[in-house]
């Protein structure tokens, strides 16, 4: 089956999740990936959205973090203070799944502003739950499309902390969780180097060249000693993903998902 790069991205992101995971889901690309995982290889995964819905099984992707679909299909719904205090801060969540407007090679994320904070060129939405998700979940998965504007050498604002300037900075700050452990894009899978913590390409999606990679990333890319080729989406993965997106588009009144 033919597929688009963003479908490969969602599939690669979904595959990173295990059936036993308890996952805090960011809206947008992470939400599609988490629900694809649930509808394919990880039927028992616990998905949690910051609106307080625990173990939710939406039939269509929510447009917002708090669509009624999430509450109606959840095991239980708790208040937002309880969600952040007992469940996130309490250390009960294994994976935080985040997107990013800007990302650097050490997994630090900016979703706050482009330009200067006091007189921004673009005022982005801000952090929401992400600053605490980034340090309270067992580990962090990130998914976004590779663009030179998105994957930059220096982000304009550290909304959510990854590895800072790399190495052991995270431990030195007293943060006990693992931090960003995988990055799934439309072109590749990246993992942090065990020592420097710089994101390193470990797998290229089928047909992706290193020249294409260089054009879409604002820093000099490091590759692992042996770079794998990501298996293409299976027919099942693509069918389930497209059905989910079609149901979602119909439910949201014709939005192209």
């Amino acid at each position, binding site marked *: 089956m033919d597929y688009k790069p963003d479908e490969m991205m969602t599939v690669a992101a979904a595959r990173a999740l295990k059936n036993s995971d308890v996952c805090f889901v960011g809206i947008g690309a992470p939400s599609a990936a988490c629900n694809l995982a649930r509808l394919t290889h990880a039927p028992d995964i616990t998905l949690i959205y910051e*609106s307080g819905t625990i173990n939710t099984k939406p039939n269509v992707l929510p447009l917002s973090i708090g669509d009624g679909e999430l509450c109606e299909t959840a095991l239980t719904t708790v208040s937002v203070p309880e969600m952040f205090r007992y469940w996130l801060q309490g250390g009960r969540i294994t994976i935080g799944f985040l997107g990013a407007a800007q990302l650097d090679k050490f997994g630090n994320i900016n979703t706050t502003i482009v330009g200067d904070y006091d007189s921004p060129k673009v005022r982005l939405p801000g952090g929401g739950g992400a600053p605490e998700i980034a340090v309270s979940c067992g580990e962090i998965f990130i998914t976004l499309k590779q663009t030179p504007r998105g994957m930059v050498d220096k982000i304009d604002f550290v909304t959510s902390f990854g590895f800072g300037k790399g190495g052991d900075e995270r431990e030195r700050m007293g943060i006990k969780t693992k931090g960003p452990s995988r990055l799934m894009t439309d072109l590749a899978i990246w993992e942090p180097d065990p020592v420097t913590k710089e994101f390193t390409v470990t797998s290229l999606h089928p047909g992706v060249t290193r020249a294409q990679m260089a054009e879409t990333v604002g820093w000099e890319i490091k590759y692992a000693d042996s770079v794998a080729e990501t298996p293409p989406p299976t027919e099942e993965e693509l069918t389930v993903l497209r059905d989910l997106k079609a149901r979602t588009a119909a439910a949201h009144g014709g939005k192209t998902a």
Partner: protein
Amino acid sequence: MAKFQSLHDAVAENIRDGDTVAYEGFTHLIPHAAAHETIRQKRRDLTLVRMTPDLIYDQLIGMGCARKLIFSFAGNPGVGLLRRLRDSVENGWPHKIEIEEHSHAAMANAYEAGAAGLPCAIFRGYLGAELKRVNPNIKSVTCPFTGEELAAVPAMNPDVGVIHAQKADRQGNVLIEGIVGVQKECILASKRSIVTVEEIVDDLNPHPNACVLPHWTVTSIAQVTGGAHPSYAQGYYPRDNKYYIDWDPIAADRDAFLAWMEENVLKVGPEIFASRVEGL
């Protein structure tokens, strides 16, 4: 003791120029009708508090009601950015508002501390996050038992808390169901409060652990059917996701925005909301 009033009177009596007002509802039960009434009554210099400013703050800011915004996520969820908020922050139209920005965890903890009568909230937060640099209200404290450094923010105690809920009974006890967000904390933390409800019933029939605000914790109640639209009321009508998507081009243009506000807010009253949720 909750007072039953028209929405007009509830807003007129409780919300004053210069007040700090929190219109809460986490995606669900956002009090749109109450915000529109505030716009019609031309309140000015408000400090608006809300975790997720959403369309209602885009509208309040674009209509010049706000002096300051305290928030943690300012987007049109799943659609994009809040264009009236951006125009204020980036270009000063209609004027530049002051910003106090937090994370969700900080805001939720601040409301909880406000409800609990504490001066501040303490939590494990903002580690490595740059908001600490730009927001002087984010400080830290050292745990006296373990020595761990924790984040601290001031308790949130608005002058007025405004929420929408499913029902009130005739005594003014209020029932909230579904995604309950920070609404209970917001009302308990606020000096005065306005609750709009879908309906007023003889008996709430709450289960023992339901989210209920006793009548003596609420200042004013106004019945507004559909009063959360385009947000939703679980059990009554779903979120109008198409409306959220359609808002983007309206908010993108100052003239289109003002024309829309004239037609859909200034020229109508709260009774219009019932027709907006019909057939959803």
